[in-house]
């Protein structure tokens, strides 16, 4: 059986960069929904516990753990956004480099 020839990644919006930018917007929207779900859950639980103080809620300086978690969230967020820019220009396997490591296999 002959191999399937290389073909460039299709660009339905007209150019690689335009398609990539649109993919980043989509990724942002997905991340926004993750935050939306978190906020809804937080509100649900807080409402059962105590009144929420007026004004913006911020992490205090001494909250090192939550701050580190927030920094990690930010790194993962930006990495996921930039994944759209790092796709391979090979329509046969544009995401193959993103395959997660693991055992098993053929």
């Amino acid at each position, binding site marked *: *059986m*002959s*191999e*399937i020839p290389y073909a460039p990644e*299709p660009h*339905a*919006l*007209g150019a690689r960069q335009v*398609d990539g930018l*649109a*993919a980043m917007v*989509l*990724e942002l*929207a*997905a*991340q926004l*929904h*993750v935050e*939306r*779900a*978190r906020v809804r*859950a937080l509100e649900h639980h807080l409402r059962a516990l105590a009144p929420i103080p007026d004004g913006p809620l911020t992490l205090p300086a001494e909250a090192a753990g939550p701050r580190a978690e927030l920094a990690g969230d930010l790194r993962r967020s930006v990495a*996921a956004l930039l*994944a*759209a820019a790092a*796709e391979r220009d090979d*329509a*046969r*396997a*544009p*995401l*193959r*480099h*993103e*395959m*997660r*490591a*693991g*055992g*098993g*296999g*053929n």
Partner: protein
Amino acid sequence: MSVDSDAAAPETVASPDADAKVAFALALKQQWARELYPALADQARTAAPSGDAADIRAAVHRSPAYPWFAWLERAAQKLMWRAVADLVDARGAADDDGGAAARDGGLDLDPALALPAWYTDVDIHIQPGGIWRTDHAAAVYEQGAKVVMFGDNDDYAFHRLFTDTAVPDGKYRRIVDLGCGFGKSTRPFKRRWPDAEVIGIDLSAPVLRLAHSQAAGSGLDITYRQADAQHTGLAGGCADLVTATMVVHELPPAVLGAVLAEAARLLAPGGLLRVLDFQPTGDPVLDLAIAEHGTRNNEPYLPMLFNTDVLAACAGAGLADARWVAFDERGAGRLPSARWPAREEWHFPWAVLEARKPGGDDE
């Protein structure tokens, strides 16, 4: 009718973030199918009122919705795989059966099997690395398959419907399911015919390990065998029923012909072939969208299936009475003819290929 199902027990939410992202991917695909596609179809039909297929094709490609429709189809699929991989990581689902031996009870793997280039060159469905490199990939595939079906097949109702409506009552001693993947198609057969020996065949060891694990967890005695469906290694005439679900559109035409020949070889006289797959419906907008889905979703042989005379291939393989009939996954299942109900939304054009091996008690 079979009554048991693969309905999953409520799952503990291991990662609400990963769940939320998968939910977003699912919502995106649902809106794409239920809102954007009808808008595209309306624009095309308005611009090409004759309904001529060539006119419709040009009108689809000129319509304002088309670039977004085409782009979203592929972009949503990529986003889905990333989200689903995170979900599998969060649940640790890939660790369930990775240690299964090559020859465990009901699992027969062939470490020497050489995978064909047509199978390995393309990441089918755009899944990173395909479904055969790691056990993680098999778990990702299983989760992704639910989103791909728009969340309507989470308990594999489509597969039960195929088993219940496309296969006639009868006594089946051995059922061979070609391209069984992670086994979702094999379990309904075993539940409906518990006395039958059910054998699932696939190229990928990871999906077979997952299938084996899930069948064992459900208390189902099913054999999973790693082999090429063109050359299963099973004895000729050993099966009363040979099936394949959602797999023949992934095969190059020459391979499809060889798989049909192998199916015919496996069938005993009077045995039945039943295949669940896709066929053109006669709706020029949908048929074009499905053919292009093959390209946009890295299923390069799907458009070729639509141009392949499968019935002639069946006849050439020695099968009789071959025909395609429509299948409605929403509840009716197998329909009596190749006429599909009109639908507004984008959907898979399900069809059942039926054929039989001549001979047996009915002749």
